[in-house]
């Protein structure tokens, strides 16, 4: 890929950013390529050293706060509406996509809440198993005092089994919670790249 191709693809991929930011980023990469060529690299080599355009865009998306992307989205939609549509359509149209954005946000939020409640619903039983198990073992003392040895043995056995089961559940809960956090990071990443690329295409 040559320099112009790389910079054009970069500019296209960063459309979700404020225009001033896009120009500054592109100028930065332009300088980086020129400096490498000055050192004796060919244009293709210099471009290749920066990595693929896709990975560069993905990294920039990861480093850009989600709030900034959403703000720019709101700003550009307003501007576009003002340019192309009548005032009536602007008034009617703008709230529609704003409410759509809010609805999309609400859906994502409810998904996240639902996922977390599953994790909490698993931690709950695990904890209660451990607590009730300990209580059960402690209660065996009463059986001993009453002289009911088989009863005491049963209480100890059942209690230990409950504690064991509860403890076994904890690592599973942890793994699930970790997977969830990872999934959520990916979700945010996905939303970001959507906001970053789609601006012009819609």
């Amino acid at each position, binding site marked *: 890929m040559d320099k112009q191709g790389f910079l054009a693809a970069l500019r296209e991929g960063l459309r979700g950013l404020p225009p001033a930011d896009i120009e500054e980023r592109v*100028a930065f990469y332009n*300088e980086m390529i020129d*400096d490498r060529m000055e050192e004796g690299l060919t244009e293709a080599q210099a471009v290749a050293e920066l990595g693929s355009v896709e990975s560069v865009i993905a990294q920039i998306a990861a*480093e850009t706060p989600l709030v900034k992307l959403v703000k720019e989205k709101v700003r550009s939609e307003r501007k576009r509406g003002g340019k192309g549509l009548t005032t009536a359509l602007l008034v009617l149209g703008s709230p529609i996509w704003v409410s759509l954005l809010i609805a999309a946000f609400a859906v994502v939020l409810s998904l996240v809440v639902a996922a977390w409640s599953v994790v909490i619903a698993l931690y709950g039983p695990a904890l209660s198993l451990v607590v009730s198990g300990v209580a059960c073992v402690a209660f065996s003392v009463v059986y001993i005092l009453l002289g009911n040895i088989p009863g005491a043995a049963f209480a100890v056995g059942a209690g230990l089994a409950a504690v064991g089961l509860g403890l076994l559940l904890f690592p599973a809960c942890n793994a699930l919670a970790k997977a969830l956090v990872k999934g959520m990071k990916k979700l945010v990443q996905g939303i970001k790249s959507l906001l970053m690329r789609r601006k012009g295409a819609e």
Partner: protein
Amino acid sequence: MDVQLKRGILDVCVLAAIRSVDSYGYQIIKDLKPYVELSESTLYTILKRLEASELLTVRTAEHGGRLRKYYHITAKGLQYIEEFKQEWKGIMSIYRFIAGEEESHG
């Protein structure tokens, strides 16, 4: 490595790279290469952050018929490096204690 910790160290690395003489993006990446592998987008973010905190200033100058951005460390930036060094002196002594390298005190 902890993300916050790494970010703090990279900031100081970039400041150190422009400490004695003004430098530009690619030169900074080359100077830091033996110590840390810095991608362009990471460097961009760091430079933006340092500029916003007034630890460095940016000027555009002509170079070989094109424009190039040069980064200049401010007094605040130099002080930032000094503070970092002081802080790490303390951390290094804790490290020596943890690693068991500290002289034993009979």
